[in-house]
């Protein structure tokens, strides 16, 4: 089916697509500026340090998981179980902190990451080797893992007095005594940087894009497709596990029926707003980080402007729909421009 002229068109369109994807990130920045401008116009105190800090505090949880979810979507998959993995890691590590108050918090964080990786590995094994479609696997484990959270915790919340103060301090203090860039934000940005290098400079990272671009071709070229897909879900699980600890640090409690519920939608929104193609094959770290920043800003703006929390879900849905539709229109125009239809 693929002819030479087809391939030529695709090469031309890919260089155009690169230009447009740069433009796409500028688009997010522009949208961000508009949101901030509108919010500031209505409420002049919008950009005071307290609110900026709230916006920045939105990033860690979101960006950390979004890095994994972005890779999953690039490989043409989806992971809707991240919210439940977040809750599971949060509750288990929280229970350990409750029952052993002297437990080392770094060890606890590591444990959370490992627990998340384990649950992610179950997803990954089912998807890559047992060939259960990603949406079915993770829709199933979304419920299964959430049920586990209730079973393990007996439905009991981890109260604020049981979360170590040293852990909570991660969300309050920053490096070099800078108050408004807390450690959790620094951690998230470090993970974003690591993801950037992983995707750009390692073999497995390049394989992620190759699989998303064309799975059959990737396989024929000797890319270890199954192993890479497995790896991507393990990473996403591990990141969701880390986010469980960051949640405990940020909010100071873990609740089985609340922590991480519905968070998969927020994460997917951030990834899709960041310009990651829902058909797979393309997506950038910078775009997704900007997507997280935009979502955080919208959320804080809604709160500051006194728009009730009841609007949140509708706004997410609308923003996802808008991002996906705008991308589809861009792609269609691109195809039209290159094929001359």
């Amino acid at each position, binding site marked *: 089916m693929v002819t030479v002229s087809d391939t030529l068109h695709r090469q031309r369109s890919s260089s155009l697509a690169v230009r447009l994807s740069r433009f796409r990130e500028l688009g997010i920045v522009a949208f961000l500026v508009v949101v901030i401008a509108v919010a500031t116009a209505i409420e002049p105190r919008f950009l005071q340090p307290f609110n900026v800090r709230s916006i920045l505090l939105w990033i860690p949880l979101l960006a950390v998981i979004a890095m994994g979810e972005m890779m999953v979507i690039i490989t043409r998959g989806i992971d809707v179980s991240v919210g439940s993995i977040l809750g599971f890691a949060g509750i288990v590590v929280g229970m350990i902190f409750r029952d052993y108050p002297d437990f080392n918090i770094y060890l606890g964080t590591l444990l959370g990451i490992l627990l998340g990786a384990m649950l992610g590995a179950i997803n990954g094994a089912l998807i890559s080797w047992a060939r259960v479609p990603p949406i079915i696997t993770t829709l199933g*484990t979304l419920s299964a893992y959430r049920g586990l959270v209730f079973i393990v915790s007996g439905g009991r919340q981890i109260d604020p007095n049981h979360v170590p103060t040293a852990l909570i301090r991660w969300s309050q203090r920053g490096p070099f005594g800078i108050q408004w860039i807390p450690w959790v934000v620094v951690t998230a940005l470090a993970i974003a940087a690591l993801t950037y290098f992983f995707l750009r400079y390692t073999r497995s990272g390049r394989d992620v894009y190759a699989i998303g671009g064309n799975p059959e071709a990737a396989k024929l070229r000797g890319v270890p497709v199954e192993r890479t897909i497995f790896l991507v879900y393990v990473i996403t699980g591990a990141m969701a596990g880390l986010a469980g600890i960051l949640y405990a640090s940020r909010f100071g409690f873990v609740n089985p029926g609340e922590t991480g519920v519905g968070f998969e939608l927020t994460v997917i929104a951030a990834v899709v707003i960041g310009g990651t193609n829902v058909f797979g094959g393309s997506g950038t770290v910078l775009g997704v980080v900007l997507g997280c920043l935009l979502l955080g800003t919208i959320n804080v703006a809604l709160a500051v402007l006194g728009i009730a929390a009841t609007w949140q879900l509708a706004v997410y849905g609308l923003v996802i729909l808008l991002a996906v539709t705008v991308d589809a229109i861009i792609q269609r125009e691109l195809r039209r421009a290159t094929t001359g239809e």
Partner: protein
Amino acid sequence: MTIGETSSLPETSSQAKPVGMSGRFKALLARPELVTVGLLMLAFIAGALLSPYFLDVPFLLSYTSLSIEVGIMAVGLTFIIISGNIDLSVASTLALVACVAGVLYFDLGVPMGITLVLSLCTGAALGWLNGTLVTKMKLPALAVTLATMALYRGAANVLVGDDSRPKLAWSRDIVFPDWFVGINRVCIPGTPIPLPLVIFLALAIIFGIVLHKTTLGRWVYAIGTNEEAARYSGVPTERVKTLIFTLMGLLSGLAGLIMVSRLSVARYDHARGWELDAITAVVLGGTDINGGRGSMFGTVVAFFLLVFLRTGMGVANIKAESQLTAIGTLLVVAILVSNLTERFRK
């Protein structure tokens, strides 16, 4: 018993034709619904052993009403999934239609009869929007319905807030009309069969006939098997897809109204997470998640399996949250088993 195989898999039907008994027997064994029927019997036996109350027929029948909405959504989802698409927004559509009905009746004073018609139209419109975004924007159904899953439930939340219709603060006299509420307490005269169950079975039969005996049904299978090929052989693929998404919205809307009647209240968090149960019912019934294969009979059997499982776990005092783990695992295992048997057969 040859429903469902008519236009789906050429290999299976050619297998079914030849050499008498053994060939026919093999074809029967190859039917994916068989596993579901077996599981249904197992669940029945296990339930009966677990609790003496389980085999109480009126009790079991009345229990089907508690999740009849899942069954009604699964009827529509059978079409959607056979066509190779997915709809994650079904439970959110249900909630939004329920809230629209509540707002129309209480806040705007629309008579109940007109409210019902307008609510069903809303459901169809929401489904049509999904279908149009999928066909006109050439977007994957997964991405579209994931967005509308948030959007529709979010809109329901905006509409009624965290409150309900009738509002908690209102006097007890302000309620839905008597003839509308309590549909689950209405039975076929002289039998313990509740009305919602009758509605579900009637819908399953009507939609089953459409799926298995009409051109539209064949087109749905054709699109799910190979959309490109279907388009080149003259199937109006876009119109068929828009139509089945619209019907899906209509069915979700109907489910929403039944839920409001059953609970006599409309809330934005009605049926939260029930898209999982509906998809599980369809997939458990042997419908291929990649499209092109499946039957309405399988969906109906799987729905009863789910209901009996939930009932069994209920009488065995297993908490609702823990039941989640069982249902989620069941969904994954169902596909896992069908994948493995597929590979084994090859």
